[in-house]
């Protein structure tokens, strides 16, 4: 990351300049004059300036982590799924409303070795960091394939945020009927010279990690984890390492090589039993 300017110290106010939806997902745009350009896989801690703390159970209190979906002259783009009080408040923002923003944070994706293609595998709102990664990879002319999984047809509209994606849905309403890992398997069966970049629900990441490990295909997994700070201060966001001990998802990740993670690690960090 030494080629990138560090994040400004302290949270800053941005103004929402655009709000659109892709199926159930909300995409917010916020011009960011003071921040350096983010790398794909990096994230920001976001909070609404107004109305933060008045949702279900008197939450949210802490800021929330979001991958950057796109970044460019129009500003930073984030893709949000309403799953609780924090995302609900952010999804309710309108053009002109203000955001607290800290970032860009964390370690992003690194490109595949020359000759290998990038195989992007996303599930649900986990497609977000892959969109910016696709932008960057295509700019450097790296061959890219994209497989995405969604719950159903409405959610599958999120696939429009990437180009040329193969889609699977749990209910078969769009694309392949079944898991995205089936599409991934088919891609790897066809050509194993790839690095897999994955982001999505814990169970999907675990499945990707496992099968790529078995095939000897390197993976870069963009993890989620409950975060309080996003910049290494709280030690709350850890994921277990195969070598023992824990790593902070926010500063050591959120992108980790699959080999570094033990089986079940991705489930444990989310309070699900491994």
């Amino acid at each position, binding site marked *: 990351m030494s080629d990138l300017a560090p*994040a400004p110290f302290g949270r800053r106010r941005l103004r929402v300049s655009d709000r659109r939806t892709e199926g159930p997902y909300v995409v917010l745009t916020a011009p960011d004059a003071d921040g350096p350009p983010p790398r794909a896989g990096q994230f920001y801690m976001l909070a609404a300036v107004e109305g933060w703390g008045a949702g279900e159970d008197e939450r949210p209190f802490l800021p929330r982590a979001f991958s950057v979906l796109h970044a460019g002259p129009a500003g930073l783009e984030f893709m949000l799924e309403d799953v609780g009080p924090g995302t609900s408040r952010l999804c309710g923002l309108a053009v002109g409303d203000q955001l607290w923003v800290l970032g860009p944070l964390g370690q992003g994706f690194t490109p595949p070795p020359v000759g290998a293609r990038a195989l992007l595998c996303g599930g649900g709102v986990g497609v977000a960091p892959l969109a910016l990664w696709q932008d960057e990879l295509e700019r450097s002319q790296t061959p890219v394939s994209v497989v995405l999984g969604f719950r159903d047809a409405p959610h599958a509209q999120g696939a429009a945020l990437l180009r040329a994606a193969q889609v699977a849905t749990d209910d078969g309403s769009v694309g392949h009927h079944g898991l995205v890992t089936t599409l991934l398997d088919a891609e790897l069966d066809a050509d194993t010279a790839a690095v897999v970049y994955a982001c999505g629900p814990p169970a999907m990441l675990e499945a990707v990690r496992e099968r790529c490990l078995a095939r000897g295909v390197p993976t870069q997994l963009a993890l989620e984890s409950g975060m*309080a700070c996003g910049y290494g201060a709280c030690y709350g966001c850890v994921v277990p390492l195969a070598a023992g001990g824990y790593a902070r998802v926010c500063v050591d990740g959120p992108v980790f090589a699959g080999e570094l993670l033990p089986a079940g690690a991705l489930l444990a960090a989310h309070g699900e039993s491994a």
Partner: protein
Amino acid sequence: MISFCGLELAHPIINGSGTFDALAARRVFGDAVGGAFPFSAFVSKTITAEPRVGNAPPRLWETPAGMVNSIGLPNRGLLAYLEHDLPALARLPVPLITNVMGSSGEEVAELVGALDDRAEVAAVELNVSCPNVKTGLDIGADPVELLAFMTLVRPATTKPLIVKLTPNTADVARCAVAAQEGGADAVSLINTLRATAMAPGTDRPWLGGGTGGLSGPAIRAVALAQVAAVCRGVDIPVVGMGGVQSGHHAADLIAVGATLVAVGTENFRDPAVAAKIAEELAKNTQIAGL
């Protein structure tokens, strides 16, 4: 300038142990952190004799106006701290307070003794209050045990010793008096309140560590009462903390007798907030002084 245990500090705002990692912050934010370092002294997270990996995740639970953490004091242990962290922390533009914990007075005396040799360390804070680790609770919650503990630890250093009291006790002022009698140069409080949460829709605890500690605005009124009680009981300086988010909150702690104020959880919401709090406080004080 504020005098605190022989240290001259630029303003009264420091960090709560375990709520700001100055080395990680420098990696994330670059040299800006050094230039605009928000605290007038830096308190390291708790160091133990042996390395600890900390608790299994999940480690965080958000509550109304607060959070429960069950971090479990991960640290690389004394030796790595002395070898790697201290030289790096010495490059901070402010004095360094090293926070330590151990399971007995003897163990802590050894830790403190090892720090005594190191010029980088301006003062030592004794964590006798961490609710995640049995020992911390017990020593700090009982005045008699705390005095016995201090009798072992005090001779191990001539550096200022700050005792970080546990709030999970019946009479925190009596514990503070015991710390003072045992030779503490200052006391700090409050640490987190013992707390827990269930995994949503289950009958299992959410936190990997089972229980944790509550911090943030939710505990501010409890912190103020405990700091006030302690300030009434002791003559040594007091570091007040618990839910501080603004200059007003810091001013309240100072009004009841605190010399310094530490910011903890609010750092997570904004890494630079302490600088803002110090400014607001200075403005308050100016206005009050007129």
